[in-house]
């Protein structure tokens, strides 16, 4: 495969970076949500909630900006995918909003029924959102039916094919594993021990899922494996990815939980990179009629707009990274409940 570093390719990777940022950041807070019910006492549940308290809405901004960048750089993909995946996307938006409501509502009343209702809502909406994100990724890898005018030609049920659902489940356990590692960093005592156990369970599940999805991809999803077959040098990335996954376990095992969490962040980064290199230069692969595929050229904005947008990104992104890291630094350390907590 040959990478041409033109504006279209740069934007392909920039949109990828925004979505990867989203997967890493909202990944752990969706994971905390999915694990929330495993914390049993009210106090522990509040700790779980407040571990993501100051940052969850900032994490979602990565998705919003990713959507905006996709609109600006590849309007054809934005239009085709979002209108085509209509119900799936509406369900995703619905669960993200519902999740926000649950976070805000939960601790405002002391009634047990009240809190339990919102606890369950928080967990279900977190799992549904993760599953939908994963399924969407699966569909992009697998390909979706597009017609000659690039409109989506399938239905809601087309999206629920076995391969995509498999990727969806993999993303759920990945986020739960990732969230557990984040939780370990933010908690103490019994809750921390419990999260360690949850991490180990989900790590194993993720390992199994990873192998199954890899085999399924090798067997059935030719369009994203062909680059790896034609340029074996690219295999270095899957190898690094596997080493990172092993490292997550090893770091956790020797008690270096921050290193384990960072390794998990890089695992997600590598997964997205492997996925991106696999589909490049396609963005929305048309299956079965490959000729209708939307790629980084036939789906892009004009060169002038891509250039303007690049200037905007080069000015803006350093600031984004600067204050994102500042905020994480300010809110480092174990969760302590106070009057401003959820």
């Amino acid at each position: 495969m040959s990478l041409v570093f033109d504006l279209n390719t740069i934007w392909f990777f920039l949109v990828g970076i925004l979505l990867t940022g989203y997967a890493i950041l909202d990944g752990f807070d969706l994971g905390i949500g999915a694990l929330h019910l495993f914390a049993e006492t009210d106090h522990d549940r509040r700790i779980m909630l407040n571990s993501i308290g100051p940052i969850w809405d900032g994490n979602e901004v990565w998705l919003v900006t990713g959507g905006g960048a996709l609109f600006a750089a590849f309007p054809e993909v934005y239009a085709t995918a979002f209108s085509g995946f209509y119900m799936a996307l509406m369900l995703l938006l619905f669960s993200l909003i519902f999740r926000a409501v649950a976070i805000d509502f939960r601790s405002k009343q002391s009634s047990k029924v009240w809190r339990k209702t919102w606890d369950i809502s928080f967990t279900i909406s977190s799992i549904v959102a993760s599953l939908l994100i994963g399924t969407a990724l699966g569909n992009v890898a697998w390909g979706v039916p597009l017609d000659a005018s690039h409109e989506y030609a399938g239905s809601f049920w087309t999206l629920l094919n076995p391969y995509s659902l498999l990727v969806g489940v993999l993303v759920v356990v990945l986020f739960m594993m990732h969230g557990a590692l984040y939780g370990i960093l933010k908690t103490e005592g019994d809750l921390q021990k419990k999260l360690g156990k949850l991490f180990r369970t989900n790590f194993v599940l993720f390992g199994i899922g990873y192998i199954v999805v890899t085999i399924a991809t090798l067997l059935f999803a030719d369009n994203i494996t062909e680059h790896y077959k034609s340029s074996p040098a690219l295999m270095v990335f899957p190898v690094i990815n596997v080493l990172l996954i092993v490292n997550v376990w090893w770091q956790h095992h020797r008690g270096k939980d921050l290193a384990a969490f960072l390794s998990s962040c890089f695992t997600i980064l590598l997964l997205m990179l492997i996925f991106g290199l696999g589909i490049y230069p396609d963005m929305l692969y048309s299956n079965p009629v490959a000729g209708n595929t939307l790629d980084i050229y036939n789906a892009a904005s004009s060169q002038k707009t891509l250039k303007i947008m690049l200037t905007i990104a080069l000015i803006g992104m350093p600031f984004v990274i600067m204050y994102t890291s500042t905020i994480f630094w300010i809110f480092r350390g174990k969760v302590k409940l106070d009057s401003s907590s959820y």
Partner: protein
Amino acid sequence: MDALYLSRLQFALTIAFHYLFPPISIGLGLLLVFMEGMYLKTKNQLYHRMTRFWVKVFGLVFALGVASGIVMEFQFGTNWSTYSRFVGDVFGSALAAEGIFAFFLESGFLAVLLFGWNKVKPRTHFFSTIMVAFGAHFSAVWIVVANSWQQTPAGYHIVETANGARAEIVDFWAMLFNPSTVDRLSHTLMGAWQAGAFFVISVSAWYLIKNKHVDFAKAGLKIALIFAAAASMLQLVTGHSSAVTVSETQPAKLAAMEAHFDEMAPADLYLFGWVNSDNQRVNFGVRIPGMLSFLVYGDSNKPLKGLNAFPEDEHPPVNVVFQAYHIMVAVGMFLILISWLGLVLLWKDKVYKTRWLLWVYVFSVLGPQIANQLGWITAEVGRQPWIVYGLLKTKDAYSPVVSGGQVLTSIILFGFIYLLLFALFVYLLNEKIKNGPELEEKTIEEGHLA
């Protein structure tokens, strides 16, 4: 039901709901900068209590704005895919710039604002407040740029691509500062400042009526009244200037705003009325002859283009635009009246005891909300039948692959969640107002010593 109609309904509902919150964030953000700045300067605990209290309310309003705003970023693609393909090159860039420049700034520093009181130095906290207020304003800049381009497209050309015709940027700065950007931005921001100021006025007046947190309420009312009076007066200026721009750039919209049908004639200004567009008459109308021409040109005899100068299928729904516009203006005038009356009474030291006016103030929070909503209805309905003025019609812009049933389902989903969100907002706001500002720890300790 058809997808076009339902998609329009969904957009109207979601954007109207969303727009309840950002104006308050913008206006309240600015007031917070002032309050916290005064605290750092004077070390007066009253300002500290004010900042603490209003930061909490700000956090709530902001959370609702984010939750309802996520939908907006995706809705162009889901329901208006033809529109998205046509404008992505231009409109998409403004939207993406909003994300990169404004959203990250706001949401990042908001965490410090809400949860960082004991984690950072007072100066850093103040800096965060400035950044959040700045981010809120910056967000308005980009979204108004994007919308203004839909009203008065500039800096683009139409290109035939393999996927059909679309607009592409030729001059970024001309796109950014298109003919209506500056007027509409200043008009929007003043509306937002009013929303923030009257929000503070309303809560403060309520405390004064209930004789609770009196010092806190008096100080809040004073600051907010000054802001409200200034913003309301400036709103008159930006409103006038916006209308003059509309007369130049979107004459059909201005004609609908005043029900001016004659092809080319001096135009009147109505105080009120009910438009019958079938026979082109205004029933129960009271008008000032030639006043619209006078406001636009300074000459009441100068003719203005009326609706009949445009083909009938390019007329916006006249009565909707007329009513929205006139009620907005009436509310705007009322806000000027009550804020300046308040200033006079403040100067005479009577405002805190004028109970009837305090009651008016309690409800005044609705004024800017109504005017802001109606202003957008005037702008957006007045642009119809166009989605991009003169270039693309709304009826040609929706998603061909989305069925009416799907849109109906999503409207029901959003209807449900928005009701829940609104209930949450009212409930939590009420709790915060009931709890009131906290007493300072220091004061409590001193109390113990005494």
